[in-house]
Each structure stands twice: as structure tokens, then as C-alpha cells.
């Protein structure tokens, strides 16, 4: 089942008790779902087993190696909710060349559609929070140690060059 993967900041979503009855905080929406040209940047993977590929795409495009949180969205659910997405490799910032095509944009977003996506994320929190393992539909925290492992594997496989990474990331890799 194809999935869209997006980075979020877990602490912003947990400002309120969203798994209970409280509303999502404005910080969560404005910081984690900040759109540009009514689009939201995501990474598409074919199955749950490929979620790590999206994580690699995200962390290899950054300035610093820091723990991140990610969520997944079921593409079929999006289609049935009338929310579209298109491939956009040009906007991809990953340093792993073979992952550039995995970059997509959720398009034509409106106030209402952003609310639907917000609900997808709340549903992920309701389904559970996990650390350093990839399960579809849950909120995944990736620690620095875990991310180092993913990046080192990509370097060993020749998919990523250590020298292409910013100094701050290179210093953290053995």
C-alpha cells in the first residue's frame, strides 16, 4: 500500500491532549503543516518496508543530524478524501540521487483540506508512538543514533557521499 511520509515536530502536536478530546494546537498546524503555493512537501514510498527510504531522503537533505519525528499517510485514504498529490523531483533537497523521484507535493490545499491532513496526523497519534522502528500509521521518532545507522548504510552502499554532507553532519559520522 503506497504511503506518503512527512516530517513533523511531535512536541508541537502534544501541546494539547489530542488523543483525548482536545483540539490541535495552532503551533502544530502553522509549524508542521506550513504550505508554500498551497502545497505540502512529502515523500512517497510503496510499502511500509520502504519507510526508511523516506527517512534517508529527509535526513540526507538537512543541515544538521538531529532526531526527527515522521508520520505516514495512506494514499488511498487521501484519494477517497479528494486530496491530490503530484511528483516533484525538482523540489527535492535530498542528497541521495536515487530518491529524488520519491519527492511529491500534496497539492491544491485549502483550509478544509489542511484540517483533513491534520486529522490524519491525530489518527497516527491515536494509533501509537514508536521509536526507531517503522510502522505505517504511527508516529515514529528517529533518534540521532538510528539516523546515523541509516546514513552510514547509504554511504556504504554508495548511494550517498559523506563529503557531500554538511560539516556538522560529517562530524557526527564515524
Amino acid at each position, binding site marked *: 500500500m503506497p504511503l506518503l511520509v512527512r*516530517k513533523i*515536530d*511531535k*512536541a*508541537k502536536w*502534544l*501541546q494539547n491532549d489530542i488523543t483525548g478530546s482536545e483540539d490541535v494546537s495552532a503551533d502544530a498546524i502553522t*509549524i508542521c503543516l*506550513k504550505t508554500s503555493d498551497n502545497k505540502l512537501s512529502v515523500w512517497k514510498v510503496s510499502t511500509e518496508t520502504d519507510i526508511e527510504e523516506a527517512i534517508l531522503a*529527509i*535526513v540526507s537533505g*538537512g*543541515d*544538521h*543530524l*538531529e*532526531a*526527527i519525528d515522521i508520520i505516514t499517510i495512506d494514499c488511498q485514504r487521501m484519494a477517497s478524501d479528494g486530496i491530490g498529490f503530484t511528483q516533484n523531483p525538482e523540489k527535492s533537497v535530498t542528497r541521495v540521487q536515487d530518491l529524488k523521484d520519491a519527492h511529491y507535493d500534496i497539492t491544491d490545499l485549502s483550509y478544509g483540506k489542511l484540517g483533513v491532513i491534520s486529522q490524519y496526523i491525530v489518527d497516527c497519534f491515536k494509533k501509537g*508512538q514508536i*521509536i*526507531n522502528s517503522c510502522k505505517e500509521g504511527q508516529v515514529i*521518532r528517529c*533518534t*540521532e*543514533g*538510528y539516523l546515523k545507522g541509516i546514513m552510514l548504510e547509504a554511504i556504504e552502499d554508495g548511494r550517498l557521499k559523506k563529503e557531500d554532507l554538511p560539516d*556538522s553532519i560529517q*562530524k*557526527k559520522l564515524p
Partner: protein
Amino acid sequence: MPSLFSQIDSSTSHDSPNQELLSLLIDTEHVDSAQPILSSLLDFIRSGTARISIVDENYINEKRLLRLQSQFTPRLVNLILESEFEYGIDSQVDVFIRNQMKENALAAKHWINDIFVSNFQNPVILVGILHIMSRLSYYEVFPEGQLMAAAALVHSNVEVQECGVRAFESWATLESLTILNNVRVATPWLQEYIKEVVKDLSREQNAPVG
């Protein structure tokens, strides 16, 4: 190495209330070319059109700190309030602080620490400062960075606590491991995160924890 020696009457200095002779000792391989320059410099000072100050490193740091406090505190606070901090991504504040650290790290750390303490009731400022400090190396920010991160661990705001954990995770030293291994927080997801970071650091430092 050959030396040039000269003395200046300290009454030309506005920092020295007592008249004394200041000794100048200049070591150089190029005595011949240095001699006329030194003579010109001394003539210039004696002419009364220049003032010299006796300064030490404390004076330099204090002067820098005062400048940071008076000119840059409002700018830093506004930058933090207006910036979007995203994990993994540089912000304007990172660039600003890195520049200040390059100019005088001692004064900059002292200055940031003052802002941290005086804004302890403001989680947004604390989160911003911890984001930046965690991206600098352990030794660059020592000891103020570590003290700020440790104080963050006991803050009432969970996000501030998390930033404290993230800072120690990022520095990834044996001290980070010791501190995190002895931290207990009330928020289950944060305690789980700490547990996982302790595992990572324990493996990296080859230091088993109980």
C-alpha cells in the same frame, strides 16, 4: 630572535591613574624595517594626538559583553520569536549566533546564558536558545551550554525539557550519557525517548549502563 625595546610614559594613557613606564618588547626577525615603524608609532603617541589604553583580556570580554547586551539582545530575542525552528534545518538565528561565537566565544556564551536565565519563564526563547546551543560542539559551548541544557531538563514545559534532552543527545559525550541516565521526567513519551538516547550513547561510548 632579535628584539626591539622601548618605553612609553603611561601618562598618555587615560586608563592609568598613576604615572609609570610601560615597556614594549617586540621580537622580530626584521629589526631594520621595524625600527623606523616603532619610532614613528612612539612619536605619534607622544604627540598627544593619540590616546592609548592599558587593556587586559577581562576588559576586552567585558566590553564585548556590554556591547552584546546593549546592541544585540533585542535583536536576538526578536530573531528567536520570529524564526521557525525545524529539526535538521539551519535558521537565521544559527547564523547570527555562530558569527557572535566566532568574534568572542567567552562573551557570547555569557551573553546567551544571561538571556536564557532572564527568560526562564518564556519557553519559546528557551527552545530557540537550546536549538542553537545543541548545534555547536560540546567544547564550544562548555560550560554554559551544558548548564542551560541541565536546567531545561527540570523546566515545567515539556518542549523545553525535550530540547534539553536533544542537546545532550547531540553532544553525545560520556557526560551526556551520565546526565541522561539519571534523568526522570513525568511525560511518558519523553522518558521513552531518553531511554532510547541512553541506549544509543551507551553503545557509542562503549559504556554499559545499569
